[in-house]
């Protein structure tokens, strides 16, 4: 089959992608550079810089995304490592438990957190019963609740690739390291951890990027009091409406995301060179 006949097979799909997917994005991003009757302009970006609230929301989003990602790493790495050590039946059950939330609607999961974390929820009742606090700790409608919710929803994105990478590590490598005289700590940090690092970095990056654009969980668990980029965009588009401003913010978010991704690719290539 020649190249041109191959192209004709995918051409319909390509047209669909460009018309239905890429063109609207370009139009959306272009909005920020266009003012009716006056042509090209940068004033919407100037507006962003002049009103510090926008940059503050962007910074806020990055911070929450970073914390949620770190929480994911702290929980996900030991979890994946523990799963590797299980027998084949244990592994199946553990994978099912990790993946199960995937099959439940994200709305249901997020509302479930309201039940769990609310003032009369199990967490607060347990805390009060154990005497750690007298009055309920407020987990909801603040950054803590949003971070907990996002970390939970995104955990499989980190755990699954990490677990796969850990399974690929040959036990004989670890045995070889032991026979060469390395104590368990050295084996972990010099052999095991470096071999899982690419998967950890890729999973973390995925989680971080997904956090940046998260909408449902911050909207519900934040109760409108934790401003993140996507909620800001919702306000700008559906309530005010100021599409040009929203477009400018989207562009900046896209550039930030691409920059992070490019940095990761560079690191990755350097590591595997």
């Amino acid at each position, binding site marked *: 089959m020649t190249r041109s006949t191959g192209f004709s097979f995918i051409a319909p799909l390509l047209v669909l992608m460009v018309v239905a997917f890429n063109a609207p994005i370009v139009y959306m991003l272009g909005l920020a550079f266009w003012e009716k009757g006056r042509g090209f302009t940068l004033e919407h970006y100037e507006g962003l810089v002049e009103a510090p609230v926008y940059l503050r929301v962007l910074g806020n989003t990055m911070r929450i995304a970073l914390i949620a990602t770190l929480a994911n790493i702290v929980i996900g790495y030991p979890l994946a490592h523990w799963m590797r050590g299980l027998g084949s039946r244990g592994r199946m059950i553990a994978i099912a438990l990790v993946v199960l939330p995937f099959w439940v609607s994200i709305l249901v999961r997020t509302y479930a957190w309201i039940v769990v974390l609310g003032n009369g929820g199990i967490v607060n009742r347990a805390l009060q019963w154990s005497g750690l606090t007298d009055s309920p700790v407020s987990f909801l409608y603040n950054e803590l609740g949003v971070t907990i919710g996002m970390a939970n929803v995104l955990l499989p994105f980190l755990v699954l690739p990490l677990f796969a990478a850990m399974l690929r590590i040959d036990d004989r490598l670890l*045995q070889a390291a032991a*026979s*060469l*005289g390395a104590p368990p700590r050295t084996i972990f940090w010099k052999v095991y951890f470096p071999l899982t690092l690419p998967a950890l970095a890729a999973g973390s990056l995925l989680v971080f990027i997904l956090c940046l654009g998260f909408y449902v969980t911050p909207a519900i668990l934040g109760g409108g009091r934790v401003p993140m980029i996507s909620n800001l965009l919702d306000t700008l588009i559906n309530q005010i409406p100021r599409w040009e401003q929203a477009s400018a913010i989207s562009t900046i978010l896209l550039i930030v995301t691409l920059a992070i991704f490019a940095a990761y690719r560079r690191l990755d290539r350097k590591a595997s060179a």
Partner: protein
Amino acid sequence: MSDIRLEGVTKRYGTFAAADSVDLSVTQGEFVTILGPSGSGKTTLLSLIAGLNRPTSGRIFIGGRDVTNATAQERNIGLVFQSYALFPHMTVLQNVLFPLGVRKIGGAEADRLARDALKLVRLDGFENRRPSQLSGGQQQRVALARAVVFKPDILLLDEPLGALDRKLREELQVELKQLQRTLGVTTLLVTHDQEEALSLSDRIMVLDKGRTQQIAAPTEAYLRPANRFVAEFLGIANFVSLPDGRQGVVRPERVRLAGAGQGQGQGQGQAARVVEAIYLGQMVRYHLALDDNRSVVAAVPFLGAAHAPGERISVSWESADVWPVT
């Protein structure tokens, strides 16, 4: 450099004994091969000696020290796997430096030791390559350098040449033997390849179903096998009935052939038919059928002419070449 001693070493998995009261004594600087089919327990035995596994009962001594309950880290053993087990995220040099770093040897001294070890396996100039950029034979040599760079008390080799093609394997056998002689390190090799065992070792230990069948020098084990299993596992064996009712084994190269009816003048030749003639370069191997339908294998030097399948010939052997087995 140390000796190895196993005393009644047993490893059970449930009721299955992977190693069944094995005794073995390897003297300092000796090269001993544990030979057996897959599932004979030879790798289990090696992992017990390496400390990757604990025996159910019995004791293991290295250099006179009881290491039965010592961890792998405490045993100072160089271990080479069939799969090489090189660290893929490290360069060749970093791999060889690893055991030195663990022993707090660093700087110029570690660098010198590592480069010396790489020179020993003829891999100088490959220091900064990754294992994935090397051929199988080169990777195995890196694994060897990594296993000897820290001057281990003993060297354990688990089918080290098993993954290589025949020609490379023969080359590396010679290198391995030379390396072992240069270092004078007590070496224990595990293999299912009887040729490898015969060509490399000072002594071989034949293992079957977790039990020792024979421990002897290669020629001894080949010519005077302790039992039927050893006779069959080491090369090709022809079993013949002895006058006293026992069975005896005759090796193919001891079988003499002559044209039909020619005998050897001694009248003890048996009539046989050539079933198959296989050319092996310098030798021809004949699969023969005696008149009572027993089969015999003979190996004779190829001198330009051979018997054809279907041809009738006379087969004989000296009674001194028959070794009785149980």
